[in-house]
């Protein structure tokens, strides 16, 4: 579907080197990486908005490297929505129709459908300045989908939204992706977001692709320390699920939501694990007793390794609390975390 071969781009401050990427049709593909890694530049290159120094870009086996943006069949949705401020919602959404020779009846039908899918029907006469973040992003999505693109490029579509809207838009993205044959390529720097939406991913840093592949492989087997750092969740265990319980090794975990699969993985972020000397009387539903096996200085905090049976947990605690608790190797501690801190996939 999308094929990128030896792509090089020189834009002064942002450069891409030797990018090779292949994305299947109707895939939900995620591009991740730290700020300044070149993710947005890569999106804009696919959309034809930046000039390419060398290399080729193919969309549906057609070489589009030299084609102008309007001939590529690629829609782009930006983090800041980029709605046309002088047009109302309806005219924003239908903006592209005339260029794709969609006649009035057809455009009206499609507008109706998109408005109902994205819950915009009551907003059509409003101007963008009067809309909330979630509404703006829904309009931007509708506008991009109006022209029935082959590929939709999403540049951190969720990161500017507050948590309630984020959940809502994420849900919508999944729904739209599942109900269409459009290929989605999304930039994000939130791994949890990526996990919940995508199947394939690429991690970028410094203008190159560090790792490409199945998102869970990247998660479980990061190929470099950068990717491992970026992935962030260090406690990953293979598990079997039973109701809202997960079994990993000889430990039983409480999880927040009932998983749909019976086998999979659970992951807990190190900063979500609380260490204490006594068993905590709190609402945290997971609590284990273990032995400290290692402590690693991380600047402002320590990464503490704790063995519970045959599982090693990694927890992040501040230097202050480390000394307060008197933690050293060999000491027995309790570790606790909420059921919602256990991610499963």
């Amino acid at each position, binding site marked *: 579907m999308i094929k990128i071969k030896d792509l090089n781009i020189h834009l*002064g401050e942002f450069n891409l080197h030797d990018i090779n990427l292949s994305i299947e049709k109707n895939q939900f593909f995620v591009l991740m990486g730290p700020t300044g890694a070149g993710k947005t530049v890569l999106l*804009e290159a696919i*959309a*034809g*908005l930046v000039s390419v120094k060398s290399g080729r870009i193919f969309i549906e086996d057609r070489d589009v490297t030299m084609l*102008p*943006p*309007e001939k*590529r069949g*690629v*829609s*782009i949705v*930006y983090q*800041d929505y*980029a709605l*046309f*401020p*002088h047009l109302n919602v309806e005219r924003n959404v239908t*903006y*592209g129709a005339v*260029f*794709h020779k969609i006649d009035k009846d057809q455009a009206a039908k499609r507008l109706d459908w998109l408005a109902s899918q994205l819950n915009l029907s009551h907003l059509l006469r409003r*101007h963008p*300045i009067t809309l909330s973040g979630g509404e703006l992003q829904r309009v931007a999505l509708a*506008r*991009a989908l*109006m*022209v029935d693109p082959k590929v939709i*490029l999403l540049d951190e579509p969720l990161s500017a939204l507050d948590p309630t809207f984020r959940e809502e838009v994420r849900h919508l993205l999944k729904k739209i992706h599942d109900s269409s044959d459009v290929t989605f390529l999304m930039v994000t720097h939130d791994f949890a977001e990526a996990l919940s939406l995508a199947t394939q991913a690429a991690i970028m840093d410094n203008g190159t692709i560090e790792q490409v592949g199945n998102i869970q492989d990247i998660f479980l087997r990061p190929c470099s320390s950068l990717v491992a750092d970026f992935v962030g969740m260090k406690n990953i265990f293979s598990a079997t699920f039973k109701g809202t319980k997960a079994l990993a090794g000889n430990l039983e975990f409480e999880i927040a939501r009932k998983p749909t699969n019976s086998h999979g993985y659970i992951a807990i972020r190190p900063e979500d694990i609380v260490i204490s000397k006594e068993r905590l009387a709190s609402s945290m539903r997971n609590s284990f007793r273990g032995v400290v096996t290692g402590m690693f200085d991380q600047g402002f905090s320590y990464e503490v390794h704790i063995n519970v049976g045959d599982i090693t947990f990694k927890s992040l605690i501040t230097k202050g609390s480390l000394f307060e608790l008197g933690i050293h190797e060999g000491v027995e501690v309790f570790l606790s975390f909420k059921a919602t801190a256990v991610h499963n996939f």
Partner: protein
Amino acid sequence: MKREPFFWVTISCGVIIMAFILLPLIEMMRAPSVSMLGQTIKDKDVLRSIWLSIYTAGSAALISFVFGTPLAYLLARTHFKGKQLIESIVDLPIVIPHPVVGIAILSVAGRNHWVGQLMAELGLRVMGSVTGIITVLTFVGMPFYINSVKEGIEGISPRLENVSRSLGASMFSTFFRITFPLAWRSMLAGIIMCAARAVSEFGAVVIVAYHPMIAPVMIYERFEAYGLKYSQPVAVWLVALCLTLFLILRLIALPRKAQV
């Protein structure tokens, strides 16, 4: 609360500047009697010169609009080596002394230069003609237009244009559907700046075209020949008309609250 001395310094300077600007203007406006103003505006020469001033300044603004807008867009949207040089060249007419502008234009438009010869063949005369006046006024007014529009376009996110293109619009369509509707206020502001600068030009025009007489030249001539009293009424009419015109344009250019 007790105000600091610094506050009083800022206030006094402000008052002095207001007086410095307004006092001479008010005194000039007050000087001629109503009957004299009436008489002056009935004078066909006066009317013709004021009309010529407005007409030539408007033409200069229009030419700047047509030719300056694409350049302003280029400067706002692209980065290239030598961009600063181009920007300095655009600003050049602002810093050149006005008579020098006139002399420079004549040295290109004269019979000894190929441009002058070409224009002569086309039947265009610069020296002592309306064409000459418009040329001079465009020269001095263009930078104000370009700078204003450049700033206006820089204020529009290029992402809006990116989205428009990815939705299938060509660069031209994008400009007319997105950039222009969002930048027209800055264009109007640029037209006002350009025309205001052009209407006030005297030094360069007097060298290129003493006749036909634009209002500033006529005011100067009357001042030289008959003195202050005789030149004041023409000046009052010119100022009054220009202020009214600019005020109207300004009001149109003001952003309305409901939109954008």
